[in-house]
C-alpha cells in the first residue's frame, strides 16, 4: 500500500473520483431514505449511473481519443474495456428499472398507494388479520379502510 500524500497534484488527479462518490451516495440516499416507490427507483438509477461514470473515468487516458480506430499508428486510445462493461450494465439497469416500475404499477393497483409508510401500515393490518384464526380476506383500499373504522 502506497503512502498517500495530499498535495495539489494528488487532489487534481483524484477529485473526479470523489465527485462521483458524492453523486453515488446521493443516489443511494434517495433509494434508502425515500418512501415513495417511484422515487426509490429514480434513486437507484442515479446510483447506478454514477457508478458507470466511475467506471468510464477509469478508462480515460489523458490525450486519448474514443476507441475507434483512426488508422494513425500514433493515436492513443482510451481504454475500451470499461465502455463495454458499462454498455452491458446500462442494459441491465434499464431492465431492472422496467421491472421495478411494473411492480410499482401493480402495487398501486392492489394496495391503492405507492408510499412505503402506508404500505407498511396496510401490511401490518394484513398480518394481524392473517394471524387471527378467522381471518377475513382483505382486499384493496376500501376493505382496509373498513377494517380501520370498524376497529375503533
Amino acid at each position: 500500500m502506497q503512502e498517500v500524500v495530499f498535495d495539489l497534484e494528488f487532489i487534481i488527479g483524484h477529485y473526479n473520483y470523489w465527485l462521483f462518490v458524492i453523486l453515488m451516495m446521493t443516489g443511494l440516499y434517495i433509494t434508502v431514505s425515500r418512501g415513495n416507490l417511484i422515487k426509490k427507483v429514480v434513486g437507484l438509477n442515479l446510483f447506478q449511473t454514477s457508478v458507470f461514470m466511475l467506471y468510464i473515468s477509469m478508462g480515460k487516458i489523458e490525450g486519448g481519443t474514443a476507441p475507434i480506430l483512426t488508422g494513425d499508428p500514433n493515436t492513443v486510445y482510451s481504454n475500451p474495456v470499461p465502455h463495454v462493461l458499462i454498455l452491458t450494465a446500462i442494459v441491465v439497469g434499464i431492465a431492472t428499472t422496467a421491472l421495478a416500475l411494473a411492480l410499482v404499477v401493480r402495487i398501486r393497483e392492489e394496495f391503492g398507494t405507492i408510499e412505503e409508510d402506508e404500505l407498511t401500515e396496510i401490511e401490518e393490518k394484513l398480518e394481524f388479520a392473517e394471524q387471527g384464526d378467522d381471518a377475513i380476506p382483505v382486499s384493496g383500499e376500501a376493505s382496509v379502510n373498513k377494517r380501520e373504522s370498524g376497529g375503533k
Partner: protein
Amino acid sequence: MDHHSILRVVSKLLIPPIIVYALYVQWHGDYGPGGGFQAGVIFAVAFILYGLVFGVEAMTDVLPTSFIRVAMSLGVLIYAGTGLYALLAGYNFLDYEAIGHGGHHAQEWGILIVELGVGITVASVMIGIFVAFASRTPKLKDEDW
C-alpha cells in the same frame, strides 16, 4: 384528441426518419458509435411515439403483440443460435471463425448477425414493455399533469 392534431402531423413526419436512423445505427455500429442495442432503442422509440400519439391499439394493429412476443424471443435465438452454429461446426460456442471463410470476413458477419439479434430483441422488448404499461387504463386526466 382533436387538439393534438399538430402533434399527430409532426409525429407522422418524424417516424420514418427515426426508423431510417435506427437502421443506420444498426449497420454502422462496426464503424462508429452504435450497434444493435442503440438501434433497437431508437427503433422502439419510433413505435412508442406512434403509440403515444395514436393510442396503443393503433400501434398494436400495426405490430400485433404476438409478433412482438415472437420477435423478442427470436432475437435471443438468433444470437445464441449463431453460437450454437459455431459449436455444431466443431468450433467453440460463439466462435465466429465457423462462419463463411473465417478471418475478418467471419468476424464481420458474426458481429453483424449477433448485433441483428440484439437489435431485434431490444426493439421488440422495449415496444413490448411500453405496450404492457400503456395497456393499463390510466387513472389520471390530462389536467392532472
